[in-house]
């Protein structure tokens, strides 16, 4: 059984159709990478998956729980959020919490863990991203790369079934991108199920088990990295990839 199955997900905002019927299936251990032009609705799709934005209609099956997206309730919202985690484009570390507290907040309030156990896990996660010496630092005292790696540690500490990455490297200085990519790569190698939105095609190729080309609120093409990058079905994918190559 797939971990997450979405059928005909639609999102309207002020009468404008942002998502126009998205079907998506992700199995345990898969890494789905979503590529596509800016403004196509990729971030909106991620936020509709963990209900940070409320879908207009559609169906979802998460670990066997059927959810009618038109009639979301608080239980559904908490179910998804307490089994998934998200890494944000602009890091979104809690500015009023230290690096350690940024990780423990979700464990204490989301996972209902006691403080000592949460601290132990948080220290282990900070160690995994080589930032244990920054445990008492506030986000404003950390570099962008360090903040994003703590953002990743915050997500993995929750031991989620699925992590959603929203352009995790696009706000970083070029020399900091590598370390963040390595952290995500390590997670993929450990079998972490992930959906990653990115503009880095080499990263998409390397990490993705499946690539989705997203444009105008719909999946226009999908397949293995080899298929999408070498012989896509949709002509727009070629145009998009060549435009990106020219930019470089």
């Amino acid at each position, binding site marked *: 059984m797939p971990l997450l199955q979405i059928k005909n997900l639609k999102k309207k905002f002020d009468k404008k159709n942002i998502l126009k019927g998205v079907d998506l299936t992700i199995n345990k251990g898969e890494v789905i990478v979503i590529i596509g032009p800016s403004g196509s609705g990729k971030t909106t799709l991620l936020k509709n998956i963990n209900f940070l934005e409320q879908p207009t209609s559609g169906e979802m099956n998460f670990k066997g729980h059927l959810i009618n997206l038109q009639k979301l309730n608080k239980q559904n919202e908490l179910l998804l959020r*307490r089994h998934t*985690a*998200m890494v*944000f484009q602009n890091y979104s570390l*809690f*500015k*009023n919490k230290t690096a350690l507290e940024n990780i423990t*907040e*979700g464990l204490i*309030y989301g996972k209902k863990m006691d403080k000592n156990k949460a601290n132990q896990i948080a220290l282990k996660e900070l160690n995994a991203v080589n930032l244990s010496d920054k445990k008492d630092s506030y986000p404003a005292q950390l570099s962008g790369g360090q903040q994003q790696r703590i953002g990743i540690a915050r997500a993995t500490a929750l031991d989620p079934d699925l992590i959603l990455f929203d352009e995790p490297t696009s706000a970083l200085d070029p020399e900091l991108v590598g370390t963040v990519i390595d952290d995500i790569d390590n997670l993929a190698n450990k079998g972490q199920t992930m959906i990653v939105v990115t503009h880095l095609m080499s990263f998409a190729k390397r990490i993705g088990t499946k690539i989705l080309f997203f444009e105008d609120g719909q999946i226009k093409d999908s397949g293995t990295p080899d298929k999408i990058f070498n012989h896509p079905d949709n002509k727009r994918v070629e145009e998009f990839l060549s435009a990106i190559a020219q930019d470089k």
Partner: protein
Amino acid sequence: MNWGFMFKSFPKLLSVLPITLYLSIIGTLIGLILAILIAIGREKKIVILTPILNLFVSVMRGVPTIVQIYIVYYGLPRLIYALFEHGANSKAITLSSMTIGVVAFALNSSANLSEAIRAAYHSVDHSQYDAALSVGMTPYEAIKRIVLPQLIPNFIPNFTNVFLDIIKDTSLVYNIGIVEIMGKANIIASFAFNYLEAYLDALVIYLIVCFIFARILSWLENIIRRRVFA
């Protein structure tokens, strides 16, 4: 310039300072409670309530304070009378000028403070709230643990502005018979036409009071900001 009169009058004006402080502090505190409710009502976008609250805020911000004080002074007793007209003690409704002053300043500050709360709320990046939800917090926990602590230090400077305005606006309630600093200055001055001296006394008192409160609130803001953001 009669310096002797000025020095002699100063303690007399100071003796009514508690009235000014009572009106401004109690009025602002009640206004703050109302402002929180107004800000929540406006942010929640509730069908009929939100437009009414929007209208209330626009009216309060668009009308001079003295007009608001007169409207409350003449209107509130009539409104209460109309509401409880059929009650046993309907004829015995009297409201003290102090009560009316507090109500007027509470209403006045509630509109401005609700805007200050909304500004502080929007100054906190929405992704902070999203991130809190994404780690499994409930909306209440996200607001309480993440948004509110960041909002408060941003709110204090605007709160200070509103509060100092209210302290200064208490000088208007002399018009409804409350003898506060300005009222006392008028009375003292009128005996021998020492208006400048009496008003200079009032100036010194208002200046010192506002300066002290501005410093206290600025100190409070710094303490909270350091605690919240290290």
